[in-house]
């Protein structure tokens, strides 16, 4: 219990210390706020423009959530197909891996062109970026089952379906969740890149907009919201993991 409290308290105190040094530096060297605003000013802006920030944050959150869910369904689906069929594995897995060498930035303008300025292109962007870690982790997880356990089920005359659902799927769950955790961390990037390239809403759009008007406090406030969102989503996935995988200490 004390350890758990420390895992929250320690990083927060480091964050607080950084904030204090930052604030002191900004005041001591009289750095203008259009270059680097102090944390105090940023917090003030967060509070004053809260409804604006929340509105745009919700848009971004929706993009992330939809993109993430799509990636989960497609990723797990493809992973099962790769696991089940050697042909699918040989024909698709190299392409999936090769696709990762294309920077997401490079295809962002194309996605805007194809899916428009609205939410669609950002959802696709998030899906593209989250998809990969989920596929790889799930394939790995489905193959992770202990061969002796599989042999035991075969001796008990289990059908391939029974072996799949009673052994392979539960065995893969922890792997899938580590894929999801990587995915959730990069999902924010996908949505924000999409918004940078072309959007009318969302935190990425707000940042670009504020940056152009030298409202640097608002840029920082957006970044703060994005990272809070990222941490929150990560916490959500971890919590879900703890509920769904109770056998892991």
């Amino acid at each position, binding site marked *: 219990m004390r350890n758990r409290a420390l895992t929250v308290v320690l990083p927060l105190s480091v964050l607080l210390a950084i904030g204090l040094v930052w604030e002191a530096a900004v005041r001591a060297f009289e750095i203008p706020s259009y270059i680097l605003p102090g944390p105090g000013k940023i917090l003030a802006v967060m509070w004053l423009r809260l409804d604006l920030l929340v509105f745009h944050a919700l848009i971004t959150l929706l993009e992330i959530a939809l993109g993430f869910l799509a990636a989960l369904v497609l990723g797990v689906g493809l992973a099962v197909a790769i696991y089940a069929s050697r042909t699918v594995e040989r024909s698709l897995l190299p392409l999936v891996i090769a696709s990762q060498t294309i920077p997401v930035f490079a295809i962002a303008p194309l996605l805007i062109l194809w899916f428009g300025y609205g939410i669609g292109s950002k959802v696709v962007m998030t899906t593209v970026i989250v998809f990969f870690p989920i596929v790889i982790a799930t394939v790995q997880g489905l193959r992770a089952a202990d061969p002796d356990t599989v042999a*035991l*089920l075969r*001796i*008990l005359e289990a059908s391939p379906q029974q072996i799949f659902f009673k052994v392979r799927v539960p065995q893969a769950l922890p792997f899938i969740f580590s894929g999801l955790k990587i995915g959730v961390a990069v999902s924010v990037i996908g949505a924000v890149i999409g918004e940078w390239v072309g959007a009318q809403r969302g935190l990425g759009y707000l940042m670009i907009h504020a940056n152009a008007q030298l409202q640097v406090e608002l840029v920082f406030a957006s970044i703060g919201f994005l990272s809070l969102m990222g941490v929150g989503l990560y916490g959500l996935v971890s919590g879900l993991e703890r509920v769904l995988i*109770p056998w892991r200490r």
Partner: protein
Amino acid sequence: MKVVGTTVRRRRVIPFTLAVFRALENGLFVCLMKKSACPMNSLDITDSVKPPGAGALADPPLLEVESLSMAYGRGPDSLSVLGNVHLRLSRGECIALIGPSGCGKSTFFNLLAGLVRPNEGEIRLRGRPVADLRGTVAYMQQKDLLLPWRRMLDNAVLGLEIQGVPRPTARKRARELLEVFGLKGFENRYPHELSGGMRQRVALLRTILCGKDIWLLDEPFGALDAITRREMQTWLLRAWERFRASVLLVTHDVEEALILADRVYVMTARPSRIRASLALPLARPRQVTQPDMVRLKAGLLDLLETNPESRS
């Protein structure tokens, strides 16, 4: 043992002794008792197994294994694991297989269980040739192989569940045995919350609940400490007597074989054959300190330590 004095008496006693011999399969017990009178090569099971047809009038034994051979790979690089294994298991009997490590005992079990195919040989179940024993055997290993995501009770019913028994019925059947297995009160624990001995008991319970005629136990208690192992042997004896199963037990532990088995088969190193068979017509529960047991243990250790190649 019966000592026969005159030829007249011997003639009368023959049917009786035959019956005893049949029960002991080959009377090697006698050989070991009077080792000097008995040429060593007669310990070879191939010499002592009766020719086919000898037991034709009686019911065929539950399980017969004839000239089973197995090699991994082909050609000059192939590794011969089993060479010509013969074995016979009667209903309700407990047979221990003992031999040096890496002697292919596990391969033998995998053959019986149908996980690998033999190169040669025949397996007969109640006199009928079968490819393997899948569906007739329950298998237990040194590793408990409990599924970490299942609670204790759900691990115990895995076999029943696969057979299609509805979960409530399966759980009810498992619950009835929890007390016998010292697992009551731990139904909802995950495997990692149980001790090594308990996990192994759950594995044993899962094996037994499958309701199969033959139990293949592959060094089931090999990973446990000596004290827990003794306890587990008692559990196993109790379960075996209660369910009247036929057991094939692979073990490295001479004492374990002596405490549990009706008969011990000694295997050679790779490619393994069954080299000798030793009947243990002693009442249970047995103590390793009994004089009979001490003598049998000495004989068995002697068999294990001598190299058959150097004798022939």
